[in-house]
């Protein structure tokens, strides 16, 4: 995924002389082709994220399309007020491309984790949030948004969901109905789409015919797609590598609240720090963000045999 970020910067940078990339000493080597092809428009600024964010706003003020890039907690949580005041309040557009989604940096501990970024950025008026989990998604979503005068977060995960979407499948602000179903809507974002698909046959065996929706744009959220599915199924499971509070699940709940007789389940990160070590997959297993976790929560919340 990170290589796709570098490839897209190179391609777009050669087409658009107003693209400028600022990094905080991350991805420096893979961005060298961009640096060479676009002289004067690549800066490995230093370890100073607040200054990087506001510098980028200054670049936007004089007509550039800035991209700032480093590890998620350092560029979202630490300089949050700079994002709020210098981009959003001043109505300047820009792009934040993060690595280290959720607990991707599994062994580095909580200092390098970031699973509150949807919640934080959603509080800022006019912002956009994307979560591309296959290379073509990043490329397409970046091209569709990078100069639309909004502050856009691209949460780039280390893992992919494994689906071969094409560029034609991807449209900013639109979810993708991956499978048709009848009595259960499974809404997945990021790499967790892979687990949603892996659980489908077993859910079928339990009597739950899952309609799987994939969400790459967290904000603006495709409520039309979600509501149409929930209207049909009246059972919803949301899966995301984000804290429960302020995540995708909250928006799904709010956006469907006037549909009667809906039951919900949420598979996300509970209200606690992920303090363990091990691999990304081991963190997922610990949190139940896997096939078995999906089957368990559906069984526990909705029972077996299908409800409708």
């Amino acid at each position: 995924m990170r290589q796709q970020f570098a490839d897209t910067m190179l391609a777009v940078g050669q087409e658009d002389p107003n693209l400028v990339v600022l990094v905080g000493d991350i991805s420096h080597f893979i961005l060298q082709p961009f640096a060479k092809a676009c002289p004067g428009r690549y800066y490995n600024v230093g370890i100073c994220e607040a200054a990087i964010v506001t510098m980028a706003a200054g670049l936007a003020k004089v007509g550039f399309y800035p991209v700032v890039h480093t590890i998620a907690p350092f560029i979202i949580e630490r300089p949050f007020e700079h994002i709020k005041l210098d981009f959003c309040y001043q109505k300047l557009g820009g792009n934040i491309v993060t690595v280290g989604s959720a607990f991707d940096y599994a062994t580095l501990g909580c200092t390098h984790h970031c699973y509150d970024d949807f919640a934080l950025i959603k509080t800022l008026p006019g912002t956009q949030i994307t979560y591309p989990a296959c290379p073509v998604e990043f490329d397409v979503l970046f091209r569709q948004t990078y100069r639309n005068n909004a502050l856009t977060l691209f949460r780039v995960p280390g893992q992919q969901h494994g689906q071969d979407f094409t560029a034609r499948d991807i449209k900013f602000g639109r979810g993708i109905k991956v499978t048709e179903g009848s009595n259960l809507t499974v809404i997945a974002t990021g790499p967790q789409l892979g687990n949603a698909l892996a659980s489908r046959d077993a859910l079928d065996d339990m009597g739950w015919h899952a309609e799987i929706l994939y969400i790459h744009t967290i904000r603006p959220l495709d409520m039309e797609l979600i509501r149409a599915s929930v209207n049909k199924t009246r059972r919803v499971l949301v899966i995301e590598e984000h804290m429960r509070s302020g995540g995708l699940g909250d928006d799904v709940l709010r956006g469907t609240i006037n549909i009667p007789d809906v039951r919900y389940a949420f598979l996300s990160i509970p209200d606690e720090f992920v303090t363990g070590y091990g691999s990304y997959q081991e963190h997922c297993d610990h949190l139940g963000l896997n096939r078995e976790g999906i089957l368990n929560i559906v069984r526990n919340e909705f029972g077996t045999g299908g409800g409708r």
Partner: protein
Amino acid sequence: MNEDLRRKIAQMVYDGKDGHMPSAFSIIDIIEVLYRDFLKFDAKNPQWPERDYFILSKGHGCLALYVILERHGFISSRDIAMFCKSGGILGEHPDCTKVPGAEASTGSLGHGLPLAVGIALGLRLKGMNNKIYVLVGDGECHEGSIWEAANVANNLQLGNLCVIVDWNGSAAQLMPRDDLVAKWRAFGWEVMVIDGHSDSELHGAFGRVRFQAKGTPTAIIAKTVKGKGVPMIEGHGQWHHRIPTEEELRIIMEALS
């Protein structure tokens, strides 16, 4: 110096029932000289691409900026009369999406300088020779983002950038080890120290800034007096955010007459 502008500021605070009068008196002479003799601008076209930029990073001093913007035709006397009132465009901190001529929305300290660094870098990339001035407070220099930006500006050799530090002693109230000259020099900036209320010293300093596309950025450390011009409010006491009574306004106006 600038008694008329100070009187207008005092009246705005009295009428608007809000505002940081001593902070504005501390910087009004600096801004007045800049707009009178150094900044290139077009009040009828505030976004003129060839303009010079003035960013007031210590946003709470904005009354000084507002009266200058009115003097040069960016905003009207009606805007001034509506200071801090519902429906007006002028608040206690400048909002650049509302105020013509205000280059940045500031108020939270430590933002104006890194913004100016981005502007200076961007304009240099475009091959333009605009000058970028940013005024920061000495108390604001407690903020880490100021020094992040100072470090970046020197490393990027932003010679088109000039910082003016309003050294009125606010910082030393809390952190007395306050050698701003040594600090800015240590960060690699060209440093001048002047009397920030002296027309001739301000002219001399602004005239000496070299403004190269690529070169050492300049810091003008302006020694100032908070509340300058009115003995009753000078210094660091209760007047920081105090609204004068009718009698106090009379005393202030008399001191400025």
